[in-house]
């Protein structure tokens, strides 16, 4: 698994800049948000003294006090539900769910209140809550520690759903999410936490706003459309595809809601071929929506159907079997190979 390859040309040129892990950038984003805005409060299980099981909240309780970074009782609905109340009173809660599957107890609060409160109150009661969810597999986690739950959140109007795949985005997008007046489900790809990239915490590179996709690599033959944990895999696949004579572009969606039709369609119209890649299960997963909307918008530019490479439609497997489940370079290239090259190009 390749993580932390340098992404984007701007970063490539900054040779002297220090190597920073995504986890550190996220930590920095929380710290900077808290320092700038006293209404930002972090809460969750083990986020205080311990600094979180992934150490994303490390040092925040010490710096800002227990009341700003709070170890809650162990109850996710309670955490998110109290965050709703805190937001009602003008705070900006940032909630940590310890693992993706452990966000499910908070589902009702998320769907029936967090996503709907602005709408229910005709704009009077917005809820600027950020729900941080470490998601996805590839870390050797046991049962219930590797779910990809983005399909649930995407299907819920009222939520923004975003996920960084680079260190710069991890910082920049988390800052944006916290500053947003809408609730944001902020999906953190667990297996990229410790992937490093050249990034300067003293001078964080500006990033595109939430809602914008970024073309990480331009290509002529076909476009890989992906996000989060699958971005490095797609970049690796694009590299490997050269050997096959394919020049693949890679689009990093960054934001599933709102969705950047413009950037995605511009790329696909250019190449006429696309593969959507994600780790989440295929059936009913994000790829269906993405493929369908591309097809609706770019039908006459398509040389082949938009294909999908996704996790299998199975409960996440035990760690020793996960490599068979996760979309890898070969599976992506197989899909590219099925893009009906005889038909055109």
């Amino acid at each position, binding site marked *: 698994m390749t993580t932390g390859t340098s992404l984007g040309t701007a970063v490539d040129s900054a040779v002297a800049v220090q190597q920073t892990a995504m986890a550190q950038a996220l930590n920095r984003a929380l710290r900077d948000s808290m320092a700038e805005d006293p209404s930002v409060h972090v809460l969750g299980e083990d986020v205080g003294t311990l600094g979180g099981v992934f150490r994303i909240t490390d040092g925040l309780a010490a710096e800002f006090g227990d009341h700003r970074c709070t170890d809650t009782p162990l109850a996710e609905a309670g955490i998110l*539900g109290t965050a709703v109340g805190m937001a009602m009173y003008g705070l900006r809660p940032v909630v940590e769910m310890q693992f993706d599957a452990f966000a499910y107890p908070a589902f009702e609060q998320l769907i029936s209140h967090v996503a709907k409160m602005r709408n229910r109150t005709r704009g009077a009661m917005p809820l600027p809550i950020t729900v941080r969810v470490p998601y996805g597999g590839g870390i050797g986690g046991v049962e219930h520690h590797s779910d990809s739950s983005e399909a649930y959140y995407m299907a819920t109007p009222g939520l923004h759903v975003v996920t960084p795949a680079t260190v710069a985005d991890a910082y920049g997008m988390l800052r944006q999410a916290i500053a947003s007046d*809408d609730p944001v489900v902020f999906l953190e790809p667990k297996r990229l936490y410790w992937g490093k990239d050249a990034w300067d915490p003293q001078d964080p590179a500006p990033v595109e706003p939430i809602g914008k996709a970024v073309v990480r690599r331009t290509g002529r033959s076909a476009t890989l459309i992906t996000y989060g944990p699958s971005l490095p895999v797609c970049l690796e696949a694009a590299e490997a595809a050269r050997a096959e004579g394919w020049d693949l572009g890679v689009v990093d969606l960054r934001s599933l809601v709102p969705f950047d039709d413009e950037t995605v369609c511009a790329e696909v119209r250019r190449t006429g071929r696309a593969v959507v890649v994600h780790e989440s299960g295929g059936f009913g997963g994000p790829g269906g929506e993405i493929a369908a909307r591309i097809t609706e918008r770019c039908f006459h530019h398509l040389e082949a159907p938009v294909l999908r490479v996704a996790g299998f439609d199975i409960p996440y497997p035990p760690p020793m079997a996960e490599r068979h489940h996760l979309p890898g370079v070969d599976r992506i290239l197989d899909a590219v190979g099925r893009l009906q090259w005889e038909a055109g190009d």
Partner: protein
Amino acid sequence: MTVMEQRDTYRPAPPPAWQPRTDPAPLLPDAEPYRVLGTPAADEAAAADPGLLRRLYAEVVRGRRYNAQATALTKQGRLAVYPSSTGQEACEVAAAMVLADQDWLFPSYRDTLAVVGRGVDPVEALTLLRGDRHTGYDPYAHRVAPLSTPLATQLPHAVGLAHAARLKGDDVVALAMIGDGGTSEGDFHEALNFAAVWRAPVVFLVQNNGFAISVPLAKQSAAPSLAHKAVGYGIPGRLVDGNDAVAVHQVLSEAVRHAREGNGPVLVEAITYRLDAHTNADDATRYRESSEVDAWRDHDPVLLLERELTARGVLDEDAIGAVREDAEAMAADLRARMNQDPEIDPMELFAHVYAEPTPQLLEQQAMLRAELEAEAHPQQEGTAR
């Protein structure tokens, strides 16, 4: 040191972390619900604040009338549904009255009366049930959260809000209302626990009206009383006759004071009864005997106050008449205003999903606008349809 050597130094002791913790005794509710009306405590109450009793009476009568009017509006198709609090007006009225202006109310879907009691316009309080809007009032105007349909889910909100206010140093108490059935939900448990651990200034008021739709309390809980749940969170549990408006007012006032003074949350169980069906759509004869309802009619909150106050000579027929007239006027106004057709702006569907509509929503809005224009001007359409 081998085991054999240790043998001589063996000093059995309780587990090291063990210390006698909070004394549970003061947290437990009394065996009987607290009552004032018809007891010696009524003398004191009447002496201490005779105006309060009259105000409670007037409010309870208004509440009863509001319930009747709203139910009548369902029959006329002016409300989609109404979950009446007839029989429970003492709780509804007292809940609103004990709060200070800066405090917050977190009502359940049955608590329109308490919402109105906070000052919310009676028509705005009903939009949810009329069906033209979800929450019809600005929650910040009177510090009233939206009526909550998903049971128990508003309780953690109350805790979070009260906690936030306390962190900011503001003097705010949150009062959260829930039914007996709602106490079975996980959110009830989590909210009480968070409130207790955080010592958040929250008063939880459980209106135990004997039923969750058709399900009687005995199928809901085996506890000595619902107020006994409090000790499991380390907070005081109080039991009160929920049809005795003065008793409810006293117990809630005391609970609010307790919370306001930084002592943390209180759980209050008010024993009451829903005299009407669950909603106008419900048929209560399917699950309860009319004899049971009749027994409660004799313990009606309006009647209890009326009897006490007339027995004391605080109320006479004239005063009662005046109170009823006032209630009638309120009902007439409500009726008149509810008989106007609300305006629906279909474009508003897209207005408050996000701070800024997404590109996708803008597309959908444009589509609906085009549809509506085509509907309004069919002749202008290009196609045959």
